[in-house]
């Protein structure tokens, strides 16, 4: 087994078929990388979203408790 | 059951007339788009007619279960203890009677307009009559799957179109064979076989899909 091309330039050119071959490999690699990145990015976004949600829930819980206390006080009067 | 469905279909007459008119107008537009050369038209006539018949069936299918879903009668049907197979079959049958059959009957006229070669008319009519029944059956599965969606529109087309391919191929194959002077019996037989398989399986799948949609 040996390298089939004389130099790097001819490896790129591939006897004139270079553009086809490299385009194919490029598209393939891009799609494969996207397949890996998409779930990873989505996980990260979910993490952020989730932490924001927890903070919001906390705030709501507090606001609701306050309001309940206030209406209870009004009812007591 | 069949009676009620039929009443309903006839009452909204537009459901019968519309696919037909759609079929005719699009086919009339075609020469405007692709140029009026007779010999070219005649080579494509069978294909165009078949594709448009397919589209007309497909588009009229969206409303197959929709009305019943929205007014709650589909749920009532699903609550009954007998299987959903027969109601679905009845609905499909009516659909075919009010779209497929008129379409097939009208097709020779359109074939004439598009310069379809002599001897192609009869196979065209036969293949359309058989084929649209399969199309109605297959399409019912898609209609049932999308009935709970608010705007299924073209999603239905996307789902169902690939499944229509065999019918389309053998349908045009029938006409082509006849035009080329071969016997078109085998193709028609295959269309018949597809129809038999679809009649057995499609209502089952559609019934399952209806139950899924109702749970939404």
């Amino acid at each position, binding site marked *: 087994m040996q390298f089939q091309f004389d130099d790097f330039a001819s490896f790129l050119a591939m006897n004139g078929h270079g553009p086809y071959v490299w385009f194919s490999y490029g598209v393939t690699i891009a799609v494969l990388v996207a397949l890996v990145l998409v*779930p990873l990015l989505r996980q990260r976004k979910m993490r952020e979203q989730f932490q924001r949600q927890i903070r919001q829930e906390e705030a709501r819980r507090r606001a609701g408790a306050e309001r309940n206390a206030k209406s209870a006080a009004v009812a007591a009067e | 059951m069949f009676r009620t469905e039929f009443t309903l279909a006839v009452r909204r007459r537009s459901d019968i007339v519309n696919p037909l008119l759609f079929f005719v107008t699009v086919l009339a537009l075609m020469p405007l788009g692709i140029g009026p050369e007779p010999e070219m038209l005649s080579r494509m006539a069978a294909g165009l007619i078949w594709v448009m018949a397919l589209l007309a069936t497909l588009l009229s299918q969206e409303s197959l279960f929709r009305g019943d879903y929205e007014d709650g009668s589909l749920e009532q049907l699903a609550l009954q203890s007998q299987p959903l197979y027969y109601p679905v079959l009845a609905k499909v049958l009516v659909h075919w009677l009010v779209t497929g059959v008129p379409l097939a009957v009208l097709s020779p006229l359109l074939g004439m307009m598009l310069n379809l070669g002599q001897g192609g008319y009869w196979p065209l009519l036969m293949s359309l009559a058989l084929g649209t029944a399969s199309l109605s059956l297959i399409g019912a599965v898609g209609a049932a799957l999308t009935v709970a969606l608010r705007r299924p529109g073209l999603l239905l087309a996307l789902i169902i179109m690939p499944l229509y391919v065999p019918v389309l191929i053998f349908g045009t194959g029938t006409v082509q064979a006849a035009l080329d002077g071969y016997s078109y019996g085998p193709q028609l037989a295959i269309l018949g076989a597809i129809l038999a398989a679809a009649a057995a399986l499609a209502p089952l799948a559609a019934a399952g899909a209806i139950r899924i949609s109702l749970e939404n």
Partner: protein
Amino acid sequence: MSWQWFHRMGSPRWFYQKSSVWLPWLGAAGLILLTVGCIWGLGFAPQDAKQGNSYRIMYIHVPAAFLALAGYYIMAICGAIGLIWKMKLSFVVMRAAAPIGAALTFISLVTGAVWGKPTWGTYWVWDARITSMLILFFLYLGVMALSGAFSREQSGDKASALLALVGTVNIPIIYKSVDWWFTLHQPATLKLTQASTIDPSMFYPLITMIAGFYLFYAWVLTLHTRTLILQREWRTQWVRELLEQPVPAAKS
């Protein structure tokens, strides 16, 4: 008793925890094989007598085409399992498999088209295999679109599983009919060469690439599944605990 493992396997949590162990290995193995296969195929495999160097596209085209088809069956089988045994996890896997399969179909379509230009002088012909591949692509898109169209996830799961099943019944029929259609028309100009007598020096890198694609597929499927699991179960305690940990800096 003997069914216990089965039900445990159906639990998304079990899968998530187990898969985090073998995930890195799967990824590493897949990427190594792919890298080796690419270099081998691009640089070291001999030039084809008839097609010159353009045939090197085969090393991605053929594995992608294989997996595109296999992926559909994987997806449909998962859907069937979900419908029959009401297994949550298998629906998740099905949903994860759809975009991956579609992406691989896309790769095989694009690479095939690009390969066609130097070989046949045109990007696209309506050949049986190509046409049925295109239809497979539509089937994938249909499953994806349907599963996303429902506001309730469970309904989307079941509906798209049913569609995938209907599709599996149809794939052989579609393939056969398209094949028949193609032979009816017989465009005499082009033909896929029968390269069954492929030289071993060309064949080994192909095998490597196919194995690499399979491993990569398994890896990415697991990744997607895990993400979907988190997305679905984010209200449960274990996911909460998991997600509350700060985002790891470099890689997750």
